[in-house]
C-alpha cells in the first residue's frame, strides 16, 4: 500500500465513500419529500416513513397480484401512494392548517402507527421477497470495489429526481405559485389561483417521493412493515440539520450525512447509528436554523 489513512487502505475508503453516497441517496429523496411538505404546507409529516414502506409494499403487490414488474412499479407505486396521500390531505390534514404544528405532527404520527399496524396484521413482520430487476442485476468491478449495477441506478435515479424537484420548485412558474401560496395564500387566491388544489398536489407530490424511495429500496432492503419506522427518525434529523423547509438543504444534507455515516462505519462502526444525531445536536447548538435554513 502506498499510503494508508489511520490504517485504512485508500481503496477501502473509496468504496465506503461510494456506499455512503448510495445511502445518502435514500436520505436525500426522503428528506426532500419531508422538506417540500414542511416548507409549503407547514406540516411535519410523521407518516412519511409509513408511506415509504407503502411504496415498497405496493411494488410487491403489483408484482405478486398483477404480475407488474419493477419498471412499471417505479411509476405506478408513487402515483398510487401519492393518491393515497391526497385522500389523507383532503379528508384530514386540510382541517389542521390553521392550527399549531403539533396537531399535524400528532395526526400524522397516529396515521403512521395505524398504517404500519394494518400492514403488520396482514403481512406479518418478517418481510416479503422482492428481486432486483434482471436488467440491473450483476455489477461492475471498479478496481477498488464491486459496485452492484442496482446501487449505481439508485444514485442516478435519486439524483435526477432530486434535481427535478428542486428545479420545479425553485425555477419554474408553478414553483413560484407554490412558494407564493405559502407566503400569502389569501393574496395568491385573490389572483385566481386555486390554492387548496396547489396544496393538495404538493402533499401528493411529497408523499409520492416517499413511495418512489420505497420502490427503490424494495430490492435491496427487507420489505417489512417497520422498514420506514427505522428510517424516519434519521431522515428527520437530516431535515433538521439541513434546515426545516429548505429544499436544497435537505438534498445536500442527505448526501452529506450518508457519506459521514459511511466513514463512521469504517472507523467506529458501533457509533455509526448515532453519528447523525451527534451532528444534529452540534448544528442545533451552533446554528439552530440548520445549515441552509433562513433564520426566522
Amino acid at each position, binding site marked *: 500500500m502506498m499510503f494508508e489513512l489511520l490504517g485504512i487502505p485508500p481503496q*477501502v475508503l473509496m468504496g465506503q465513500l461510494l456506499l455512503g453516497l448510495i*445511502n445518502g441517496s435514500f436520505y436525500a429523496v426522503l428528506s426532500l419529500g419531508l422538506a417540500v411538505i414542511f416548507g409549503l404546507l407547514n406540516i411535519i409529516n410523521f407518516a412519511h416513513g409509513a408511506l415509504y414502506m407503502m411504496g415498497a409494499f405496493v411494488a410487491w403487490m403489483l408484482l405478486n397480484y398483477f404480475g407488474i414488474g419493477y419498471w412499471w412499479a417505479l411509476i405506478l407505486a408513487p402515483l398510487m401512494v401519492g393518491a393515497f396521500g391526497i385522500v389523507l390531505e383532503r379528508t384530514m390534514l386540510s382541517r389542521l392548517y390553521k392550527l399549531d404544528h403539533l396537531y399535524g405532527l400528532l395526526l400524522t404520527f397516529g396515521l403512521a402507527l395505524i398504517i404500519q399496524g394494518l400492514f403488520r396484521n396482514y403481512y406479518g*413482520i418478517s418481510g*416479503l421477497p422482492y428481486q432486483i430487476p434482471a436488467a440491473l442485476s450483476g455489477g461492475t468491478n471498479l478496481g477498488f470495489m*464491486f459496485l452492484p449495477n442496482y*446501487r449505481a441506478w439508485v444514485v442516478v435515479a435519486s439524483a435526477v429526481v432530486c434535481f427535478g424537484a428542486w428545479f420545479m420548485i425553485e425555477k419554474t412558474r408553478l414553483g413560484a405559485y407554490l412558494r407564493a401560496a405559502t407566503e400569502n395564500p389569501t393574496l395568491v387566491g385573490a389572483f385566481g389561483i386555486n390554492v387548496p388544489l396547489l396544496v393538495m398536489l404538493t402533499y401528493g407530490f411529497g408523499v409520492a417521493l416517499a413511495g418512489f424511495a420505497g420502490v427503490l429500496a424494495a430490492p435491496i432492503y427487507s420489505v417489512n412493515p417497520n422498514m420506514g419506522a427505522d428510517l424516519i427518525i434519521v431522515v428527520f434529523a437530516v431535515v433538521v440539520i439541513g434546515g426545516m423547509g429548505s429544499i436544497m438543504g435537505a438534498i445536500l444534507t442527505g448526501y452529506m450525512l450518508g457519506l459521514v455515516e459511511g466513514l463512521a462505519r469504517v472507523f467506529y462502526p*458501533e457509533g455509526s447509528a448515532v453519528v447523525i444525531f451527534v451532528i444534529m445536536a452540534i448544528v442545533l447548538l451552533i446554528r439552530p436554523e440548520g445549515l441552509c435554513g433562513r433564520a426566522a
Partner: protein
Amino acid sequence: MFRTLAVATTLGALGATTALAQGIDVKLGVLNDRSGVYADLSGEGSVVAARMAVEDFGAAAKGLNVTIISADHQNKPDIGSNIARQWYDADGVNAILDVPTSSVALAVADITAEKNGVMINSGAGSTALTREQCRPTTVHWTYDTAALASGTGKNMTDAGGKKWFFLTADYAFGHSLEENTIAVVEANGGEVVGKVNVPFPAQDFSSFLLQAQGSGADVIGLANAGGDTVNAIKQASEFGITQAGQKLAALLFFVTDVHALGPQTAQGLSLTEAFYWDQNDQTRAWSERFMAIHGKQPTMVQAGVYSGTLAYLAAVQAVGSAKDGAAVVAKMKEADIQDPLFGTVKVRGDGRATHDMYLFEVKSPDQSTGEWDLYTQVSTISGEDAFLPMLDECDFTKK
C-alpha cells in the same frame, strides 16, 4: 400408629377424589413479542400452539381446567417484568410460556423463581438461562446460542471454512452468539480474522459486508437475527460476495425468515433448527393443523411452545397441582419425555431440555416445490453434542 396412617391415607384419598372432581386449575400465560421483530416467529402462532397442546393433551378429560392468556412484552425487559408480576400476583398464572428476547427472558426467569411459578422458555436464545442465571423453575425447551453454534459453526468449519469474519448485532444476544460460535470454530481448527459490531437494528449492511469481503475470510458469520439477517443476506448476494466464493453462516435463522427472503436469494444457506414442519409424518400432520388455523407453517419456537406445554401439563397432572412451580419442574426432570415433534426430550437438572438438533440447507428455487418447501435436512446433531454440558451448581435435582 397403623391406625393414624390408615386414617391419613383415607383422608388423603378423599382429598384426592375431591380435587379430581373439582379439577386442577391451571392458568398459562403466553408472553412474547406480538408486534415487533419476533412477532412472526413467536407471536400469535405461539398462542395457537399452546391451545393445540391443551386440546391434544385432553386436559378437560383428565381433570385439568386450563385457561390461556397472552400479552405483548414488546421486547422490553421492564414491560415483560411488569406483566409477569401482574400475572403471578393478581391473575393467578401458574406458568409463563415462550418469552423470546433473552433480556426479557432473564428478567422473567428471576421473577418466576421468586414467585415459585414456571417458565417454559421456547423463544429466547441465551445460554445464561440454564447457566449463569439458572433457576429451579426454568425449563429452556427449544434451542440456545450454543446449540446453533454447534450445528452451523462446526459444520462450516469442518467443510473447509477455516477463516471467519463476524458481523455481530451489538447487544447481549449477538455477543453471546458470537462468543459461542467462536468457541466452536476454534475448537475445530478455525480462526477468527475479524469482526464488526453492527448497531441494532440496521438497514444497510453494505459497508460491513465490504469490510468482511476485504478480510479474506472463508465464512462470514452473521451473529444477528430477523430483519438484520435478511438484510445482510440480501445485500451479500447483491454485492457478489456469495458468488465470489465467500460463504454466509446465518447463525440464527427461522423458517419465516427464509420464507421472507425467498429461495432465490437464500438458496444454499446452511442453518440449524430444532424442528422443521416437513421432517416426518407426525410433524407434517401437526403442522398441517397449525397452518389451517394460523395460515403459516410453524417455526421451531412455536413448535417448542406446543411440546413444552404438553410436557408441563403432564407434570401438573402427575403432581396433582399447579401451585408449586418448583415441584412441577422437578417432575418434568424425572424421566425422558417422548414428544410428538421433538422426539426423545430429556429435561436436565439445570432446566435445559436436550433433544436432537438438525442442520438444514435451503433449497434452490428448482428444488422447491411449494411456498414453504424450503429445507433439505443435512445431518442430525444429538442432544449431548448440541448443548453445553451442565454446570454442577445448576443441577437442581441434586439439591
